[in-house]
């Protein structure tokens, strides 16, 4: 009976036609939850018993020395690296360890890589087009058409990242900083629930940094953002809560002031306070 009923609901799409993702359940608070995660490479523990929780809508900064495991942590969240032990949950429903990269991405986790990676043979415009949130299965992709709202959205992002003029150039010829921007743009097109941003302002001028800061803080609230950055000026300008990673686990956590005054953080990371600009 209810089956027949469902058939009569003409506005309802059949299940198998729906994108294969169920909404993220954040009723219990955190959108991302890492527990006791450990990963080692040939005996070297890059991540060591890491525990981390990101709340829905939060903007979190993660800092820590080179090699502390920040990028590796993002690799784990996005499915690129499998941890040896531990749990990684997205909301309270999705066990990320049981999924592969595209599945995780289609759940709404977007990432900007430390080393900017864009599709070099495709134009800037096409890079953004591919990143756009859409039905990413085969047939819809094959038959997808460039409709006006989509184009507008892309133009809008191009404007934001300052690459409007270069939109038909292949991404491969962009300068380093331009690639950084393009990756940020791709992230924006994706409209993910959770953004993982690895060193977004490397190679940017002060003023660009400010723009990036505005952009990220603007996103926070609607989306959750995790930022890894070494530029303390930048971190200070956006940070609410800061986590310090060291040797694969959390060394300190708290507000910017709290952590920057933590002697351990100063020792392993910041250096003598008078040196800090």
């Amino acid at each position, binding site marked *: 009976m209810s089956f027949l009923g469902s058939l009569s609901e003409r506005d309802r799409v059949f299940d198998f036609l729906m994108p294969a993702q169920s909404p993220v359940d954040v009723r219990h608070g955190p959108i991302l939850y890492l527990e006791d995660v450990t990963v080692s490479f040939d005996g070297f523990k890059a991540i060591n018993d890491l525990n981390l929780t990101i709340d829905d809508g939060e903007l979190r900064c993660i800092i820590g020395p080179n090699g502390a495991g920040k*990028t590796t942590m993002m690799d784990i969240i996005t499915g690129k690296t499998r941890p040896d032990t531990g749990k990684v949950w997205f909301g309270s429903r999705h066990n990320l360890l049981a999924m592969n990269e595209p599945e995780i991405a289609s759940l709404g986790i977007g990432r900007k890589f430390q080393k900017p990676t864009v599709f070099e043979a495709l134009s800037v415009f096409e890079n953004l087009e591919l990143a756009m949130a859409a039905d990413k299965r085969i047939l819809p992709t094959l038959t997808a058409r460039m409709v006006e709202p989509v184009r507008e959205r892309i133009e809008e992002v191009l404007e934001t990242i300052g690459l409007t003029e270069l939109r038909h150039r292949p991404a491969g010829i962009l300068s380093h900083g331009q690639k950084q921007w393009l990756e940020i743009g791709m992230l924006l097109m994706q409209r993910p629930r959770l953004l993982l941003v690895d060193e977004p302002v490397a190679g940017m001028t002060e003023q660009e940094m400010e723009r990036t800061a505005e952009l990220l803080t603007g996103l926070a609230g609607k989306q959750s953002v995790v930022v890894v950055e070494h530029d303390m000026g930048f971190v200070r300008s956006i940070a609410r809560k800061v986590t310090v990673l060291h040797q694969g686990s959390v060394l300190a956590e708290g507000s910017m002031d709290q952590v920057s005054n933590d002697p351990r953080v100063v020792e392993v990371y910041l250096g003598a306070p008078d040196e800090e600009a």
Partner: protein
Amino acid sequence: MLTIDKLNQFYGESHTLWDLDLEVPAGQCTCVMGRNGVGKTTLMKAIMGEEPVSGGNIRYADDVELTRRRVEDRSRLGIGYVPQGRQIFPLLTVEENLRTGLAARSDGLRGIPPRIYELFPVLEEMKHRRGGDLSGGQQQQLAIGRALVIEPRLLILDEPGEGIQPNIVTLIGEVIRRLIAEDGLTVLLVEQKLPFARKYADRFVIMDRGRPVARGDIGELSDGLIKEHLTV
């Protein structure tokens, strides 16, 4: 140390460097600044010979005309290069990466100078790890260490602090100063971060659309200049 005269460069049909003049005085740190995509990296590549130029001169150490030298010979003349994006050899171990720098040394040294490991202890720790496995910042340290292995007279650094933890950035700055003071090294630096530039550079050059638009002692780098040339 380096005198560039009317340098022009094209990527296919797009003109990137326009009649560029630049003077890098010996024993000083000259910092090149400018917005994304104005051609800073291109200029460094042109000096190293990685991108062909179409016209202009680059004179090195008063008498050597670099444009007529092959790339490999430029480093043998004592130019060390830390490129943007690190460009380490991903499948070579850290030690092997460093050893590549030995080719350019004239003294036939066979081991890694200990000073490198003193500067960047993490490199010694990770000696046998493949370069590509290192974290971004570690790679950056490796790239700098590798350039230092050749004991350069002129060191070109393209955004060297990128991705490096603050205390090491400071350290790098200190090292630059020390090398300038002790060995008479000349440094050509590309840097966007004002505090760093202000602290460690002697002179600045601001580029816009392939041309230098302002230059002077670092003390002369005013907020007005910054506003004019470094903001969008």
